[in-house]
């Protein structure tokens, strides 16, 4: 993260130069939301890459039937660590921590978040939890092998280092709660003059909905994890039938948090997409209020559907029916969003630049993931495909194809703003094309494999699944090469690329009205908001390709 600091990208240093401290302390002890945002960004990105490597290793093992490069025990540990790293260290803190911190305060016209020190503490808790998880891999009985869900009774009995890993996740939970509290307070209290609730950018709205889920659901995860530790260390027997406990209770408690957590992962991603689509369609967002409503509805309804993970675990038929029904209810606000994005595109002046390509990919992949989610939400088909590769395909479409691609879209859309330099467009499009192709080959094969009956979480499979598994593995290589090109191009561009000044995308949200990179307190003078976030009519053209005369002319024409 310091390479960026040393090779300073912009003449107008903005928040990069304006610091009392020097070296690494100017970062890890900074209370500036932009620096904390970048800390989050680079730490989550680092863990993402680690998770990608583990995922590639898993795919290599599954390339051919039988033992390819590792045995079952190693495989169990690798997929567990892959899941824990990707979920708890990348997706959950990724968008809110990195881009929420970077962009949200500027978007509402604030100088910083409401509690800057708490914000720094959140990052420290996150990184401490991450360190504890890393330590758990190399100490005690070795890396946990329970899957990221830590299901009892296995998690209470396995000799691997589950206790420490769970403690790490527990700490990270506090980071999420504090971030949530901080964001809710910031959005309520620090909006600039004229920034009414109806003028909040949709990314801010999605963060607001997410923050409430973080505040309300994460404590349950904390309690559940403490109970696992108590089970392992004190033998409390809460989840052990032999001692009067109930393992299904664990699944309830785990999913009461972890299903809403899925919405912590996807809601900010939807916010990113809602901000990018109108900018690159040159058209105000269609159905602003309904998108806001659907964010809140997803947060609320999404908290009531956890039981659909447990259709085969032993629940009453009534419970299955109710959970299945509620799951279908969540599809409604999700579909509202998709329809509104598509309607925004309609008759828009679409420019297919990299952020837009990633955003459009989000819509497609999220729709595929969401619709296959309904296959899983319906009780009858769920029992057919439960714990097969269909599930693996489904959640990778939603989490990676959804949140992951939204993260990439946000990287291309917002990072140049903070670096003052931009990536090269052509390699970015090439990278996107590779990733899109690789992604679909990799995960669509999984969906088909699941329908054919291949169970998940085994290092081996029947010979009849060999062809599609090989295809999936090859897809993973295409995806990975696209990822490498994308990151190389992006970071090369951010450090040495073309200057990025003014408002090249033509966004109407507040972050495009501050200097690039933004100064430490974001604005030269306190902004007064006079128009909505997608009101492009009031926008002044500052395109670098135009001379000042042409710009004035263009502005007069639009006025």
């Amino acid at each position, binding site marked *: 993260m310091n390479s960026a600091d040393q090779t300073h990208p912009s003449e107008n240093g903005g928040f990069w130069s304006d610091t009392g401290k020097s070296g690494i302390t100017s970062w890890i002890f900074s209370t500036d939301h932009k620096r904390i945002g970048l800390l989050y960004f680079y730490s989550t990105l680092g863990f993402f890459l680690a998770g990608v490597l583990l995922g590639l290793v898993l795919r290599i093992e599954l390339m051919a039937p039988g033992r390819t490069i590792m045995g079952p025990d190693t495989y169990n540990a690798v997929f567990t660590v892959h899941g824990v790293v990707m979920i708890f260290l990348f997706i959950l803190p990724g968008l809110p921590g990195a881009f929420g911190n970077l962009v949200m305060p500027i978007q509402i016209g604030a100088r910083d978040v409401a509690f800057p020190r708490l914000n720094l503490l959140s990052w420290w808790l996150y990184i401490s939890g991450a360190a504890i998880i890393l330590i758990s891999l190399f100490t005690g009985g070795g890396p946990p092998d329970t899957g990221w869900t830590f299901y009892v009774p296995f998690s209470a009995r396995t000799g691997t280092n589950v206790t420490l890993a769970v403690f790490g996740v527990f700490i990270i939970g506090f980071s999420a709660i504090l971030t949530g509290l901080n964001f809710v307070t910031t959005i309520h*209290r620090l909006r600039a003059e004229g920034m009414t609730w109806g003028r909040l950018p949709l990314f801010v709205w999605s963060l607001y909905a997410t923050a*409430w889920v973080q505040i*309300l659901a994460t*404590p349950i995860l904390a309690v559940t994890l403490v109970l696992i530790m108590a089970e392992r260390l004190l033998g409390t027997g809460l989840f052990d*039938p032999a*001692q*009067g406990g*109930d393992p299904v209770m664990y699944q309830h408690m785990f999913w009461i948090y972890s299903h809403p957590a899925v919405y912590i992962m996807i809601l900010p991603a939807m916010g990113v997409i809602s901000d990018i689509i109108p900018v690159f369609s040159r058209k105000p967002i269609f159905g602003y209020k309904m998108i806001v409503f659907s964010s809140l509805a997803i947060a609320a309804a999404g908290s009531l559907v956890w039981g659909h993970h447990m259709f085969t675990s032993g629940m009453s038929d009534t419970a299955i029916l109710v959970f299945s029904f509620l799951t279908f209810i969540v599809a409604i606000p999700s579909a509202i969003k998709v329809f509104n994005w598509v309607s925004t595109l309609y008759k828009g002046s679409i420019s297919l630049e990299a952020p837009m390509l990633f955003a459009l990919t989000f819509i497609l992949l999220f729709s595929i993931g969401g619709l296959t989610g309904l296959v899983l939400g319906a009780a009858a088909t769920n029992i057919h495909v439960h714990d097969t590769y269909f599930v693996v395909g489904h959640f990778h479409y939603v989490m990676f194809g959804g949140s992951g691609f939204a993260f990439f879209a946000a990287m291309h859309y917002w990072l140049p703003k903070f670096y003052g330099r931009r990536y090269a467009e052509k390699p970015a499009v090439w990278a996107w094309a590779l990733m899109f192709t690789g992604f679909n080959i990799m995960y669509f094969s999984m969906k088909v494999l699941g329908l054919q009956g291949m169970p998940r979480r085994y290092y081996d499979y029947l010979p009849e699944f060999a062809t599609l598994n090989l295809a999936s593995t090859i897809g993973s290589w295409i995806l990975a090469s696209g990822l490498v090109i994308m990151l190389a191009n992006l970071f090369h561009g951010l450090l040495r690329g073309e200057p990025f000044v003014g408002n090249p995308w033509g966004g109407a949200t507040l972050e495009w009205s501050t200097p690039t990179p933004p100064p430490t307190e974001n604005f030269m003078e306190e902004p007064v908001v006079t128009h909505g976030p997608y009101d492009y009519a009031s926008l002044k053209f500052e395109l670098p390709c135009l001379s000042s005369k042409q710009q004035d002319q263009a502005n007069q024409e639009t006025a």
Partner: protein
Amino acid sequence: MLRFRGLMTGSILHALPCSHHLLIALLLALTLPTHPATAHSEEQQQNHQHQAPPQQQDQTASVGLDERLGAKIPLDLVFRDESGKAVRLTELVTGPTIILPVYYSCTNVCNYLQAGLARVLPQIKARPGTEYRVISLSFDETENPQQASRSKRMYLTSMNAPFPENGWRFLTGDAAAIHRLTAAAGYRFQRQGRDFIHPVASFIVARDGIIVRYLYGTSFLPKDLSLALLEAREGKVGKTIRTVMDFCFSFDPKGKTYVFNLLRVSATVVILCAGSFLAFLLLTARKRKQRNTEHT
């Protein structure tokens, strides 16, 4: 889940013509997880009776268990102890007392029941004989103190731990006394040749003879047993931590629910906190805006 278990035991009921079918059905039901055991097994028991085929209902209608929680067993009853000496229940029920209705010549579940108890008794922290007592009571009026004494030797030896003779008494008695006691406890059994059809259950009474808890099945959980004994200990205040535990986890068997619903209470607290946080943000924001407009 309940439904599945009910079906399972129900089908076994149909499949087995043996006279022990009820016992087996009960056993199956009762050895299942006992966490909210009282609730589950009671329901299942009712299920079994409903599901019993009609021709068998006559035989078994008088067999079963009606929980008489809060009822008093007559303490003036006289039985014979292992040595043949007459003892009055008041002399034995001097504190929390676990009463096991069995018969000593039983070749089946009574052994499991008593062996199950013998297995966990050494893990109970309370002192047997002084702080609590166990009574095995034969409901077969033809049995004699010699059989009782043999049973006593067997189970005390099987414990593999020192246990005072006085801590577990094995009684026999005449039909009238037996029936008064079992009727008071709602325990209904029936002779069938040399054997009996009877529920597999035991109950715990407090010093004044009030029934505080029924325990089902042949396997006991040390914690359940300790908790039941704690409930039965009247008038005495335990250590603070135990009192707290007692409050948090005491089970109301009549309402089939915990007295203190931890989940509901903590959920309410969380939602109240979040709600007041939101209210605080919304209400004070309005005030601040008013103040701002006043200034300008």
